[in-house]
C-alpha cells in the first residue's frame, strides 16, 4: 500500500444545530489533525450580561441558542436562585421538570428524524423519504407538535419561553387544556415505539471506552441530583467545576474538557448508562428490550438513548399532568441580593453548567460550560479513528474521500453537537 497526503474539508456541516466546518488533514497516510471550525459570529453574551438586573439575565441567555433555549433559561434561573438563596416551591420545581420534558420530546425528535434518519436511509433530507415511508414524517411531526404544545401549555412557548422565571412561573397553567394534552401525549407513544425500534435495529457501531458523566436524579428529571460518573465519582453540582480540566486542543485552538484528568462524555448515552433505573415505570414496561442495551459503549447508541428519553419524558409528563393540582403562586422573592452560585442541569445534549456572581441585584459575571465543549475531545478522537479505518490509498482518492465525508458526518450527528452554543463557548480560533 502506498501512502499519500490529503486534506479534506467539509464546508458547512448540515443537519446539526448551528453551523460549522470540518477540516481533516492526512499526512503519510495517517490522520494528523481533525479540526472543527465554528462559523457563526459571536454575539458577546459575556459582556451583555454585565450590570444587568438578575431577573432579566435568564431570558437574555436563552437567546444563546434557539434549540437549547429552554435549557439555558432553566440552568441560568437555577444559578440565580442558588446565588440569592431563593427556594422555589415544589410546584415550581414540577413545572420546570415538565418544561424540560417538553424540550426533550421536541428536541430529540428533531435530531432523530430530521438529522439522523436521512443517514439511515441514505437520503439527503427527511423530506426525500420514499412513499412507503412517508408515514414516518407524519409521526415525526406529531411527536414534535406534542412537545411543542406541552411547552406552550406550561412555559408559554417552546423557544424563548416567557413564563419560566426566577422564583416561579408567571402564568397559571390553563387546567382546561390538560385532558387534551394528556391524550395527545398518549397518542404519540406508538410513534415513539416505531422510532425506537428503528434505532434498536440500526447496525452502526463504534465502541469506545470512556467515562460517562451525568446528573443522576431519582425521577430522571434533568434538574437536580448528584453528578455521577461510570468511573465512580459522586459529586455535588456546586463542585462540578473543581473536577473539570480545560484542555486546549492542538491546531484548532478549541477548548475541550477532561473530567478528573480523563476523557469523558455527556448526553443521553451517559444518562442511560448511569441512571436507567430511574426511567419511568411505563417506559420500562414497554421498552425493556431497548433498555437492556444499556450500559453501552457504542457511540451510536446515543440515538437509541434519545429515543428512549422521548418516551420517558412523555410518561413522566402524563403522570405530572394527571396528578398535579395546578395552583396560582406568587414568585418567591430573594432574601439577599449579593452572592455567587452554581446551577447545573442536564440539557438535551448533556450537562450544562452555569456559575454566576451578583452584587446588589446586578450581575457581575456569568461563566458556563456547555455539553458540546465537554464532548469535543471524544468527538475529535472518534473522527480520527474512523477516518484512519477508512483510509485506503489503494482505492482512488475520490472513492474514500466521499466515504470519509459520509461516515464522519454520521458520527458527528450521533454526538448531536450544538454549534450555536459552541460558537460562544468553545473558544475556537476564528479564521
Amino acid at each position, binding site marked *: 500500500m502506498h501512502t499519500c497526503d490529503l486534506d479534506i474539508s467539509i464546508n458547512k456541516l*448540515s443537519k446539526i444545530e448551528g453551523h460549522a466546518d470540518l477540516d481533516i488533514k492526512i499526512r503519510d497516510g495517517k490522520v494528523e489533525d481533525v479540526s472543527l471550525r465554528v462559523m457563526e*459570529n459571536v*454575539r458577546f453574551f459575556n*459582556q451583555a450580561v454585565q450590570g444587568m438586573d438578575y431577573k432579566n439575565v435568564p431570558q437574555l441567555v436563552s437567546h444563546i441558542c434557539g434549540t437549547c433555549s429552554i435549557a439555558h433559561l432553566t440552568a441560568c434561573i437555577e444559578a440565580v436562585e442558588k446565588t440569592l438563596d431563593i427556594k422555589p416551591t415544589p410546584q415550581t420545581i414540577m413545572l420546570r421538570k415538565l418544561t424540560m420534558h417538553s424540550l426533550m420530546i421536541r428536541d430529540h425528535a*428533531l435530531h432523530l428524524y430530521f438529522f439522523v434518519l436521512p443517514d439511515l436511509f441514505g437520503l*439527503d*433530507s427527511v423530506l426525500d423519504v420514499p412513499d412507503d415511508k412517508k408515514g414516518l414524517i407524519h409521526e415525526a411531526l406529531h411527536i*414534535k407538535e406534542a412537545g411543542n404544545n406541552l411547552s406552550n401549555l406550561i412555559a408559554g412557548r417552546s423557544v424563548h419561553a416567557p413564563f419560566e422565571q426566577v422564583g416561579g412561573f408567571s402564568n397559571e397553567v390553563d387546567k382546561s387544556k390538560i385532558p387534551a394534552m394528556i391524550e395527545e401525549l398518549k397518542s404519540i407513544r406508538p410513534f415513539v415505539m416505531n422510532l425506537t425500534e428503528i434505532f434498536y435495529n440500526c447496525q452502526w457501531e463504534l465502541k469506545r471506552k470512556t467515562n460517562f458523566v451525568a446528573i443522576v436524579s431519582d425521577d430522571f428529571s434533568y434538574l437536580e441530583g448528584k453528578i455521577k460518573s461510570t468511573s465512580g465519582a459522586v459529586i455535588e453540582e456546586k463542585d462540578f467545576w473543581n473536577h473539570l480540566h480545560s484542555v486546549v486542543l492542538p491546531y484548532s485552538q478549541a477548548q475541550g474538557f477532561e473530567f478528573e484528568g480523563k476523557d469523558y462524555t455527556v448526553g443521553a448515552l451517559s444518562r442511560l448508562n448511569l441512571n436507567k433505573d430511574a426511567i419511568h415505570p411505563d417506559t420500562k414496561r414497554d421498552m425493556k428490550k431497548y433498555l437492556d442495551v444499556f450500559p453501552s459503549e457504542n457511540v451510536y447508541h446515543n440515538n437509541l438513548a434519545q429515543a428512549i428519553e422521548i418516551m420517558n419524558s412523555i410518561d413522566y409528563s402524563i403522570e405530572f399532568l394527571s396528578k398535579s393540582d395546578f395552583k396560582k403562586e406568587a414568585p418567591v422573592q430573594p432574601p439577599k441580593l449579593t452572592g455567587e452560585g452554581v446551577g447545573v442541569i442536564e440539557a438535551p445534549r448533556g450537562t450544562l453548567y452555569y456559575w454566576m456572581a451578583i452584587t446588589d441585584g446586578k450581575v457581575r459575571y456569568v461563566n458556563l460550560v456547555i455539553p458540546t465543549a465537554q464532548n469535543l475531545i471524544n468527538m475529535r478522537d472518534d473522527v480520527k479513528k474512523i477516518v484512519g479505518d477508512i483510509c485506503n490509498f489503494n482505492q482512488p482518492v475520490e472513492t474514500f474521500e466521499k466515504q470519509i465525508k459520509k461516515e464522519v458526518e454520521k458520527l458527528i450527528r450521533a454526538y448531536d453537537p450544538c454549534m450555536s452554543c459552541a460558537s460562544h463557548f468553545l473558544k475556537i480560533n476564528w479564521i
Partner: protein
Amino acid sequence: MAKKRVGVFSITCDEGCSIYLTEIFNKKLLPWLEKCEFVYFLSIKDHTDIKDLDIALIEGVVTSQSDKELLEKIRANAKTLIAMGTCAMTTLPSGQRNNFNLDQMSQIADHLLKYHFLPKALALKDVVRVDDNIPGCPIIPEKFVEVFEKYL
C-alpha cells in the same frame, strides 16, 4: 406549475426562528410541499449552491463582512427576500453590541477588528432591498403562515 424554490438562511443569531419554523412545519409542512421545495435549509438538508430562488427567508443580523457578502449573494439570487424575526428586521436581540457602553465596547474592540465585523450590526434592510417582514422573537407562527403563503 413548477414548485417554488425556497431557501432558509441563518446569518448571525441563535437560529431560534428556523428552529421555530420546524415547529410551524408540524401542521404546515405537508401542504406546503405540494407547492414548494426547500432547496436550501442546512438544518434539514446538505449544503447546496444558492441560485434561482423564488423565496429567501433570512433570520439574523448582519454583523460581519462575511454576513454582508452572503446576504448580497442571496439577494442577487432570490426573487423575493423576506426578513424573518426581529433580529433581521431591527437588529435586536442579536445585535445587542450596538447598545454596549464604552466599557463593554473596549472589551470587544479587538475581536471586532480581527474578525472583520462591521462597525454596527445591521438589519437586512440596511444592506439590501427587503420585500417583506415576519415579526416576532421567535417568529409569530400565524404571521409566518400569512406572509409566506402570499408568495407560494
